[in-house]
């Protein structure tokens, strides 16, 4: 049996979902759209499991954004794979009137409904008492008292769900339909075999938004609406007002209000005095960002070192104990190095998402949106773009998905197009290793490390390019669509740590399995390409070196052989093939290989460099990679390959380049066309190439 959780934003729906399903949840997509679908399983008694679907928060079934659109489609399409057998409408009892609007609509759709009165403690605090049995009688559906935050009343809800599952019944209240539309809605109901006339009415009012209808039915419905001279805006306004007066009549009988100060709200307003303050607002916001950076970079280092060392130990162990063979090489230098390259990111991703989810949980993120709206509006973005932009410091993929809360298509598109310019965590290892190579490890005024400053500079550069690109896109894109900013500000709350934990768990899991697959696959392919080559060039490498350089020591000969083999391997041939294109940027063919492989995902760059330089050697320790990079000499010029100019050129290249297949894929899914991801790929590549070229020739 499927049970859908439905409710306004901030009504405590996700808390309830987490309590019901615990870790038995997964995040998927609704068919055809990339709106997160949270599904989980819940054991409601010893023998019965139910499937729980957490629908996006919405104020009504008339959608204003993609998220809300999903609620409409799931609830009005009986053939939808997620069409629920039962709905639990979760309401914030301290704001019952507004919350019951959605309840009434869902109820009229003919889905068996249970009303969950949540946040009764807050309601009591502001002097509201609700007569639950009487409310149950008036509404004609089961009403359950709940405190989802504390997990109180969950068992009671399960019991009621179980009881009602046996005999699913719809309440018998009369639907709210005006007489003039009764005939039409009844007609549609019968024609499409719908549950209630109200659903029929929705088919008439919102047929443009019901994507599951076939074109013939849709044009039939819109013709019908036209014949009836149907004004859908007016209809919707009338409906809302009528429902509210109906709700008022019901609530009069069950609610007692004793005027009390709304303490939670007053406290939130007081906190806002500081957090939206003209000066302190921005100072605190920057301070928090700084804190996040510091922790992500410094705290995450410890677990990262541990993982790094652990992988190295495992690799050495396997090398010592397994017989020397191609297969062992593949396992150690190919697979384990690849897996290590995935695991090493976990601490940073966990830290970043911990912070982001704490900001969201506490209600502060909504204030950041308010603070930043006017600042970034002139750059084609909206205050609501701040959430994707901050998230994309972790990873652009979830960030781009979070842009769907932006109702306006143009704002959303601009946000999607510029988000990958924010430096994500995958660029971090590249930044780290190259900065360590060229920026002196000294302190400015004995306080700020130059390397840290350089790192912040790169992030800043990413952010500035976001603004620039946003401004350009805003100027180029024309739209007549009006967008609304209107948004509820949740009261400040203590973060629910289990929610933070779920978020971290979920994001890390997604990263390990989704990104991990790509990285591991690339590592193996790369190893194969670097370990094999065509014809005499590759197979005769050993012989050639041995005859030409017989005067060198055994060690030097081994290194020469390895490098000769790499040059003649498939990877080497490939790198040489693209060398003419990247030479103006100061890169040689080895960097070329890394550029190509890191097109799949940026984090592969360091992995590739380490694979390329570790083939033929048995130590892949990062410090030695650094010294190898430093000692690497260009065959033709005799100068170091990683000169200051080349290193900076590479750094700048990676700030701008769209080197991530997952991002391209997600942009395709979100914009539903190849046009935008291709434009994005093109403009970012040009930007990267030109900037890197410029930097190289200035510094050379």
């Amino acid at each position, binding site marked *: 049996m499927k049970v859908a959780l439905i409710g306004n934003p901030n009504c405590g729906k996700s808390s309830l979902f987490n309590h019901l399903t615990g870790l038995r949840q997964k995040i998927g997509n609704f068919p055809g759209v990339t709106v997160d679908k949270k599904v989980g399983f819940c054991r409601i008694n010893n023998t019965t499991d139910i499937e729980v679907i957490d629908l996006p928060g919405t104020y009504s079934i008339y959608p204003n954004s993609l998220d809300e659109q999903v609620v409409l489609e799931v609830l009005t399409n009986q053939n939808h794979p997620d069409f629920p057998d039962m709905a639990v409408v979760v309401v914030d009892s301290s704001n019952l009137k507004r919350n019951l609007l959605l309840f009434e609509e869902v109820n009229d759709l003919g889905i068996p409904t249970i009303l969950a009165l949540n946040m009764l403690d807050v309601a009591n605090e502001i002097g509201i008492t609700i007569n639950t049995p009487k409310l149950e009688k008036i509404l004609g559906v089961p009403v359950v008292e709940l405190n989802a935050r504390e997990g109180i009343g969950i068992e009671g809800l399960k019991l009621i769900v179980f009881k009602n599952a046996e005999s699913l019944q719809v309440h018998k209240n009369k639907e709210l339909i005006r007489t003039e539309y009764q005939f039409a809605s009844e007609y549609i109901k019968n024609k499409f075999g719908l549950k209630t006339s109200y659903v029929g009415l929705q088919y008439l009012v919102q047929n443009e938004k019901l994507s599951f209808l076939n074109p013939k039915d849709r044009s039939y419905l819109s013709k019908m609406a036209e014949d009836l001279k149907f004004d859908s805006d007016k209809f919707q306004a009338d409906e809302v007002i009528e429902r509210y007066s109906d709700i008022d009549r019901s609530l009069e009988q069950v609610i007692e209000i004793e005027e009390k100060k709304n303490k939670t709200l007053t406290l939130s307003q007081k906190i806002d005095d500081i957090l939206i*303050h003209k000066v302190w607002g921005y100072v605190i916001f920057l301070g928090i960002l700084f804190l996040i950076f510091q922790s992500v970079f410094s705290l995450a280092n410890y677990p990262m070192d541990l993982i790094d060392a652990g992988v190295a130990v495992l690799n050495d162990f396997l090398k010592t104990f397994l017989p020397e063979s191609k297969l062992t090489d593949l396992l150690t230098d190919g697979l384990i190095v690849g897996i290590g390259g995935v695991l090493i990111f976990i601490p940073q991703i966990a830290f970043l998402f911990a912070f982001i989810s704490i900001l969201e949980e506490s209600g502060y993120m909504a204030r950041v949106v308010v603070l930043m709206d006017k600042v970034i509006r002139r750059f084609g973005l909206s205050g609501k773009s701040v959430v994707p932009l901050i998230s994309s410091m972790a990873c652009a993929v979830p960030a781009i998905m979070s842009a769907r809360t932006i109702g306006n298509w143009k704002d959303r598109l601009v946000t999607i197009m510029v988000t990958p310019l924010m430096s994500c965590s995958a660029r971090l290892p590249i930044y780290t290793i190259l900065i360590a190579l060229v920026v002196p490890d000294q302190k400015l005024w004995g306080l700020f490390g130059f390397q840290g400053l350089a790192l912040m500079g790169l992030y800043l550069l990413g952010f500035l390019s976001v603004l620039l690109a946003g401004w350009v896109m805003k100027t180029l894109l024309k739209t007549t669509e009006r967008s*609304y900013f209107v948004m509820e500000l949740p009261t400040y709350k203590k973060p629910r740590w289990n929610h933070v934990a779920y978020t971290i768990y979920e994001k890390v899991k997604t990263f390990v399995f989704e990104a991990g697959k790509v990285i591991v696959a690339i590592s193996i392919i790369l190893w194969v390409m670097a370990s094999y080559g065509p014809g005499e060039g590759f197979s005769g490498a050993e012989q050639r070196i041995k005859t030409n350089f017989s005067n060198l020591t055994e060690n030097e000969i081994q290194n020469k052989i390895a490098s000769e083999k790499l040059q003649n391997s498939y990877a080497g041939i490939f790198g040489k093939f693209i060398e003419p294109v990247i030479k103006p940027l100061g890169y040689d063919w080895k960097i070329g290989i890394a550029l190509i492989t890191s097109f799949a995902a940026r984090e592969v760059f360091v992995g590739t460099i380490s694979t390329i330089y570790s083939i033929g050697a048995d130590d892949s320790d990062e410090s030695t990679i650094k010294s190898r990079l430093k000692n690497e000499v260009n065959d033709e010029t005799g100068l170091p390959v990683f000169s200051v100019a080349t290193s900076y050129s590479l750094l700048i290249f990676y700030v701008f380049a769209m080197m991530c297949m997952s991002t391209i894929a997600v942009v395709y899914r979100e914009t539903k066309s190849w046009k935008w991801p291709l434009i994005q790929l093109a403009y970012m590549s040009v930007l990267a190439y030109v900037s890197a070229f410029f930097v190289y020739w200035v510094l050379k």
Partner: protein
Amino acid sequence: MTVADLKEGEKGKIVSFTNNKLALKLLEMGCLPGTEVKLDHKAPLGCPYCLTIGDNYQLSLRKSEAETILLT
């Protein structure tokens, strides 16, 4: 008078709306005619506004949107 004319800390009662589409959204969110609106804060650059609706919950909207809400 509209919500945009309020000063920080001032209150007013909603009479009607001048933008139909936006009115629908606001109605759904509980901004009904007769509801009391208090302007809590303007963001540092003068926009968006933070409002308290009916001593019940807080809402944020842009200045241009605040201008469509008529008050007594």
